[in-house]
């Protein structure tokens, strides 16, 4: 609000009156500023900061390593807990598992294209993951080969224990 100077206030013409008046004005604007900030800052944090994270999600027993053929990306489905605000729901989701020809250091890709979230699939012919929406293409390591995808495929944390594939949370993408 613009500071408004009085035009007809005779009493404020004296020096003392002016000082008192400017004190009043400064006080009013100052305190209103403080109160607004005391509400706006918590409101901003409330709306913009992510909520405190509940207990880290545990490893989900997703599949048997033996059922994944080496060298061929395979889509597996498993149940995971989705935390959505105050709701925790158990829902089915999938991951593309790539098992190397040797060893058991598997990779698990999240099933959405990093462009606009369409479900992609493995094209054995091109030996790449292809997204049907805008023809993004990813290598078997998840690197972008073509199309509009802005970054490599997202990965889940994954480990193999006693021949079982355990899937953790999504790795933060670089």
């Amino acid at each position, binding site marked *: *609000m*613009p500071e*408004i100077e*009085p035009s007809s*206030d005779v009493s404020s013409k004296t020096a003392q009156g002016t000082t008192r*008046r400017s004190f*009043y*004005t400064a*006080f*009013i604007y100052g*305190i*209103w500023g*403080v*109160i607004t900030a*005391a*509400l706006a800052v*918590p*409101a901003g*944090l*409330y*709306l913009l*900061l*992510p*909520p*405190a994270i*509940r207990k880290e999600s545990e490893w989900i027993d997703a599949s048997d390593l033996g059922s994944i053929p080496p060298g061929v990306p395979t889509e597996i489905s498993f149940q995971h807990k989705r935390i959505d*605000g*105050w*709701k925790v729901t158990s829902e089915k989701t999938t991951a593309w598992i790539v098992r190397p020809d040797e060893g058991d250091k598997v990779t698990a890709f999240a099933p959405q294209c990093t462009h606009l979230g369409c479900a992609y699939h493995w094209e054995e012919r091109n030996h790449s993951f292809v997204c049907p929406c805008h023809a993004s293409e990813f290598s078997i390591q998840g690197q972008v080969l073509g199309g509009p995808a802005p970054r490599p495929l997202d990965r889940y944390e994954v480990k193999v224990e006693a021949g079982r594939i355990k899937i953790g949370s999504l790795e933060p993408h670089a």
Partner: protein
Amino acid sequence: MRELIDWLEHRTGIETAVKSFLYEEIPASSGWPQIMGSMALFFFMIQGVTGILLAFNYAPTPGEAYNSLRYIMTEVTGGRLIRGLHHWGASMMIVVVVLHMLQVFLFGAYKKPREATWMMGVILLLVTLAFGLTGYLLPWDNRAYWGTVVTTQIAAGAPGAGPYLVRLLGGEGVGVVTFARFFAAHVVLLPPLTLLLIAVHVYLVRKHGVAPAAVETAPRKKFYPQQVYKDTVGFFVAFIILFLMAVFVQVPLEKLADPTDTNYIPRPEWYFLFLFQLLKSFKGPLEIVGSTLLPGLAILVLFCIPLIDREPMVRLGKRVFAMAFAALALVGWGGLTAEAIMTTPPNPGGRAAGFDSSQLRDWQKLTPEELSGLTYFRSENCVACHPGARKKGTGPDLTQMPDNHRNVAWMVSHFKAPDEVVPGSAMPAVRLRDSELNALSLFVLKLTPENEEDLLRAPTEAVKGANIYRESHCSACHQLQGAGIKIGPPLDGVGDRHNRQWLEQHFKDPRSLSPKSKMPAYKFDEAQMDAICAYLLQMP
């Protein structure tokens, strides 16, 4: 800047409007007492802002409402603060509105030509109370649910209108429809209605001007900046109080509403307590006097005050009758409220949901029977051969028993004849009664590597108390830590409600403290009494 203002002024006339608002002339006598109206508006704005913020994370259906509010309070950044501001802001708004009304009343500012301003103010008071009443249900905890059950029952008892009011409030019982109605009233209906009423109220104040004193000696002055400064001081002080309360005073969020919880003693928010108490004074067919007739009459009188008192303005000091009337009303209100607070016992299980169970010691999480098993774990010196997960002993680690041993039947038969169940076992038979072996088994089955250390260190008195609890079959009528039958009141957190002396007296002669109690008297000796009280008082 000047150019922008000029441009806006030319297009909208905003500068003229603001100036005429700020430079309105007010009587020279206006000062601190007159800030209450602005304060009420200030609190309405705070409630609006915090209410909108809460709505961004709130699911308005029973059950979900509770979960989402819990989410706001425990997980959303700043959520506890925002809810604190809204909760305590409501109480402070009531205080400020009443103070505003009191000031106008005492100064006689309702007199001609300001009668309509007063009446509009009384309607605003009712709207403010309606906000409080409808908002009370929205957390959908026990407090909300049971408080609203009483409210709807009162409405149902209103002569003539009762059945229609019940339909309006969503039918018999408090359920999803009532909840939807209260939510809609609180969030959709009341806010715009209040804005409209405030606009009319302020328009009327402006039309007639701020009420002058009986004799004004000095010339009139401007609203801005001196009076605005005083208003601002008021806002600031009130806001600091509100903020401190929001930060430091716990906002209640009790257990999820439980319509089967017959132990719950409903009570309304503090500003409705006097009505709640008034109601108790009228029994049987006279009940409607306390529930509807008297409050209705009081509102009518309040509304009609400017029509009843039509004397011209006099100095405040001469308004002896008005002051006596206000004092009487305040004393009556205060007395009823105090009486209500003093005569309503605290609630069983009234613990806030924010209660942090991670603060509990592990032994406090066991049922009485499980904990009583520790008595025998100690008396049989089990620890000599089973020293715990971190040390090597003759016997196996009890926290790592195979699954097929993890049942009471297997354990008891193993205790009775160890080597018959586990060939080659070097363990001596445990010579105890079946009920004691049961308790011991239950305790051993609770051991984990994480809780073992804490469990084995449980205080002797408490363990002894738990054993007395089991031997006296307390769980045949009481629940504690989720175990037992609910005939009598649950004993969780009994120490929050009663002290040692009370418990002792209650054991000796239950009916001396709870006249309707069906509990038999228990003749414990001194040591037993010490133990059982120590145990009960320590259980959360």
